């Protein structure tokens, strides 16, 4: 039994924390809400290697595992980064890895080097993560993996709740075939995306907890720090408990992606279901602990709340994943 990050992963975590704190941060989302473009971090993101975590070294990546990507994603989630870890580094890279031939390999190279920003389009018309910045779209139709240039896609934009997610509805009609992809590989790649999203939300929730606890120690009311009141203290403890339980589920699901394919579907749905509720509860509680200042445009709490409200529905909400977990459990009886 060794359910902990190893030394390399702890090092990666530290590197990722420093990197994301130095590149962007929540203020970027506020600027985007007021009309600024997304921060231009693509080249540096490729240089630091976070886009190629799951990509083989001969294709410019570092050939690590989904757990390593989850470690990076948690740190990205802490700062509400625009880095396309869910769509490109997780989902697209996993789909392409199972594609055949040189064409798929070439796209992997482009993801790792940052020369292409790939978003994944599903057939059901769900909002596409990272569509705003995407230079190309990846889709699966009738078992074929197809990549389409941006100008070959029909993109329908709507007002953004969290502009860092770059959501849009996308329809692709033509593109370049990259070979067959097995249904179980399509499913696995989606689970990798779910786990990566849950890992980002772990970081988002953990940062909400930190902000709330810091404020509860400083803010004085009725002659004492508000964190000394049980009403506030207990809210913070419930956030802490949720963050720690979510961390366990994220690590386990990420580990399953590379080591236990049988448990991956249930563990990925468990992580996504729990993250949807935990991140939302932490973001809402963070505002409540801050009181009036937490409700202002200038405070970061509203930015974390936006991320939480959007992420909870992406790739399936809690109800859908709870139902999926029940279905898988009942099928095993």
């Amino acid at each position, binding site marked *: 039994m060794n359910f902990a990050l190893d030394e390399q992963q702890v090092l990666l975590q530290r590197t990722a924390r420093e990197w994301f704190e130095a590149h962007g941060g929540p203020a970027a989302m506020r600027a985007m809400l007021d009309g600024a473009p997304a921060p231009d971090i693509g080249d540096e993101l490729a240089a630091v290697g976070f886009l190629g975590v799951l990509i083989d070294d001969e294709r410019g990546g570092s050939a690590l595992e989904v757990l390593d990507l989850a470690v990076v994603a948690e740190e990205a989630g802490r700062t509400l980064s625009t880095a396309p870890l869910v769509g490109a580094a997780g989902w697209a890279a996993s789909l392409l890895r199972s594609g055949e031939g040189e064409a798929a390999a070439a796209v992997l190279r482009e993801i790792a080097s940052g020369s292409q920003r790939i978003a994944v389009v599903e057939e059901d018309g769900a909002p596409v993560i990272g569509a705003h910045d995407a230079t190309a779209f990846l889709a699966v139709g009738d078992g074929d993996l197809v990549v389409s240039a941006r100008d070959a896609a029909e993109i329908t934009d709507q007002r953004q709740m969290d502009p860092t997610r770059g959501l849009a509805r996308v329809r692709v009609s033509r593109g370049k075939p990259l070979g067959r992809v097995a249904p179980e590989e399509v499913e696995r790649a989606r689970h990798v995306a779910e786990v990566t999203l849950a890992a980002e939300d772990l970081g988002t929730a953990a940062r909400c907890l930190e902000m709330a606890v810091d404020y*509860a120690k400083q803010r004085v009311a009725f002659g004492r720090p508000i964190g000394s009141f049980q009403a506030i203290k207990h809210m913070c*403890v419930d956030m802490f408990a949720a963050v720690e339980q979510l961390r366990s589920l994220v690590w386990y699901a990420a580990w399953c992606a590379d080591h236990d394919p049988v448990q991956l579907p249930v563990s990925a749905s468990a992580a996504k279901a729990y993250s949807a509720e935990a991140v939302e509860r932490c973001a809402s509680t963070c505002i409540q602990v801050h009181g009036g200042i937490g409700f202002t445009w200038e405070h970061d709490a509203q930015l974390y709340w936006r991320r939480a409200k959007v992420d909870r529905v992406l790739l399936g909400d809690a109800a859908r994943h709870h139902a999926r977990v029940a279905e898988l459990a009942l099928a095993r009886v």
Partner: protein
Amino acid sequence: MDFDDTPEETAWRGRVRRFLEENTDDVVRGRDRHTDAAGAAPRQRWQATLYDAGYVGITWPVEYGGRGGTPMQQVIVNQELSRAGSAPLVNGIGLGMCGPTIIAHGTEEQKQRYLRPMLRGDDIWCQLFSEPAAGSDLAGLQTRAIRDGDGWLIRGQKVWTSAAQYSRLGLLIARTDPSLPKHAGLTMFLIDMEQPGVTVRPLRQMTGDAHFNEVFFDDARVPAENLIGEVDGGWRVAITTLMNERLAIGGGGADMGVSVETLTRFAAKRLGALPADEQALVREKLGRAHVLAMAQRYTGYRRLTALSQGRMPGPEASVGKLSLVTLGQLTAEIGMSLLGDDAAFGADAGGDDRWQYSMAMWPGLAIAGGTNEILRNIVGERVLGLPGEPRPDKGVPAAAPTGVRA
């Protein structure tokens, strides 16, 4: 990261499992509903069998009857006992709380004399802490220990004392100096429960069972050698007991109530009998219970990893009890939902009341071993570093009962 046993652990697990398979006829199964000495006797024999074979007190020192093993080995024994369907060991309070307290604070003679029979289940122990006016605020306790020659006379009342009705010995905290501030005037003793000054009166809980008791002390005697730690130094000793209690309830991965696996098998049989719209709701809740059970299991594995690397779990382990209670209550509620109209009765037509019993059991677990609210205070203050509540009682002698307003 991996979830496999090491080669040593595999060998150990194999040994434990073989023993349990070879002795399957002796395993005492079922839930712990006995309420007297006669009911406890078969479980005492089972604990003795396990002890003699070397499977109780794995981490305790060899010189006191333990095995000097690792926490992981103890966890493996617990897992295999659970797998074999064994009921919890009869002397759980002794093993989980009284024993670790004596190991940490007892005299050499106390360790030599009491630990081995405790492990074997020959002596059953109870923990005499809570009082009618001192529960969460334990340090407000009023039971007096009055000097009498070399020893003490005990006068007062304890309550919620599990297993007192068939315990031979108890771990008792009493007030030796009422003039001192409330936390300072307390002393820990071990007491012989089979003496004229001790009266045990069973209390029925809302489940209908009488696990716990009121215990009255009318000048019961405690000889000098039964002092644990320092006179007036009992609070420090009690902290050891309480920390172990929280680990025993929340952190050990012990089975409590009905498992999610049992619930799922029940759901597979019963879901079809519910109206279609209700089925969807129950499925959603069943999925939620599985997610919480996984979160509980893998968070437990993180604690085990820390243990196996030689680190002790800290106060953050207290949140394990909070989430365990949430999961247990949800599991029982889903079981009730699956009963359909039968949920309005105390048992189904065949007399099976496991869901009703489980539902009635969880409110007790939300209170025992530190209420959910006290645990949140502990985690908030010791883990998150939030400031404590102002304490008007600090430094003030606990001269009068503080738990009830006249």
